[in-house]
């Protein structure tokens, strides 16, 4: 189970968000850009240190004290694929698998994420959509207990987004990781989670299923965000 309470001062307001997700569950953080969603995710991942609060994952305390990044069983994907540019696709994925030379697991990742054609290519020689798939393979290679997604579908066309969402859902079911995902597009979040936490100006304004959010949005801004274009 992920149990987190993140308090982090920012210029305009203080982010103060508490959340709980059952083991293997999925939660969306939803709100406008700049609401503090990414700050929460970044604090859970360990890239930022909260001013106060706690982050626990099952029996493991991530904060406080702040657990070093390399000891966190956390996968983190953002809109930047952040592939290592001096390595090939294979080396990028293998990077998360130190010690496992010819692992069937690696083959499975390669085949199921359709990376065969670019497996030996340099990481800078592939397209944006391919790079996101490689980043996903690299993240999953370590079999993380917790996966944090910070708008990893930004800038991709619908076809690519649909493919990535299908992949992600399949791996979520197969590996059973806990998932927290941030985006400002409800259509994407609704495919990944049943439940969402709505964040405005660093505070949780509503917590519920997508149906409940649509039926009784807590704020005018949320109503606007969920309304069709």
């Amino acid at each position, binding site marked *: 189970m992920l149990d987190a309470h993140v308090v982090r001062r920012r210029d305009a307001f203080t982010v103060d968000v508490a959340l709980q997700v059952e083991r293997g569950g999925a939660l969306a953080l939803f709100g406008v850009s700049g609401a503090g969603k990414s700050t929460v995710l970044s604090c859970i991942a*360990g890239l930022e240190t909260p001013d106060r609060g706690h982050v626990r994952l099952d029996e493991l305390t991530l904060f406080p004290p702040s657990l070093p990044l390399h000891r966190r069983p956390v996968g983190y994907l953002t809109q930047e694929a952040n592939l290592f540019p001096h390595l090939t696709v294979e080396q990028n994925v293998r*990077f998360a698998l130190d010690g496992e030379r010819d692992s069937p697991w690696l083959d499975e990742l390669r085949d199921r994420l359709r990376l065969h054609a670019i497996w030996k290519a340099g990481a800078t020689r592939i397209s944006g959509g391919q790079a996101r798939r490689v980043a996903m393979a690299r993240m999953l290679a370590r079999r993380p207990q917790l996966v944090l997604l910070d708008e990893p579908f930004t800038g991709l066309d619908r076809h690519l987004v649909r493919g990535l969402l299908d992949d992600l859902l399949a791996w979520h079911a197969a590996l059973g990781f806990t998932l927290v995902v941030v985006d400002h597009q409800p259509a994407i979040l609704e495919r990944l989670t049943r439940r969402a936490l709505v964040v405005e100006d660093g505070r949780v304004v509503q917590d519920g299923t997508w149906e409940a959010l649509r039926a009784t949005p807590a704020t005018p801004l949320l109503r606007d965000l969920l309304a069709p274009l």
Partner: protein
Amino acid sequence: MIGRSRLIGRAGVGAFTLALLYPLAALFAPVGGWDWSPQVAGPSIDSVRTSIVLSALAMVIVVAIGTPVALYLARCARRERVWWQAALLASILLPPLALGILLSIAFGPAAPFGAALAHIGVGTTNTATAFVATQVYVSIGYYVLGAVAAFEGVPRALEAQAALLGHAPFDVFRRITFPLARLGLAVALSIAWVRAIGELGAVLITAYHPSGMAVQLWVNLQSFGLPAVMPLLVIFLAATLPLPWLAHVLAQRRARA
């Protein structure tokens, strides 16, 4: 077809480059037969050996100390870095002769630290130790500033991602930070190398003996004139130029790739 303005620009840069490289034409100047007689060759060869071996040792020290310092500076808060870099700049901006005098006093027997070193048998004037220490002082600032820029060029997000993939800090440095910064580090090292091996002013004060190439060139000029300088000058250029030239060319090629 190349435009007229492009042609004029190219001609201008060509003239500038010719003027810049013009001093090399002196290698073909009619200075008389080059003097490589035994009394010139013996000390000159010794100076080459001294410069290469001791400068290489100085570079090992520069890299060993300068790399972690540069990594810290590249990763600390910008406000903190300004102060550290101000101190580094001060060391770089000291005129070499002034630095040599300051070093010889600070490490000389009149100063407590120099006295302590002398007490344990470490000679700080006209020794290999003095030569290496002086080279480290004159070059480490250049290396650190260059290395800071190289490390700053490595995105922090990549290091964080590597750590989140289970790699401890040293492993992240070895497998991500260093490979991505290595060309910048090579350029920084090559500048430090040129600065160290070419140093005359400071070394003249602290380590006239054992004479390195720079000091020996000066001695040859004073004692035997230009014909005795030219052979050692060619060796001097061959020892100093290729490494930084290659590092810069490689860095440029990588930047274009």
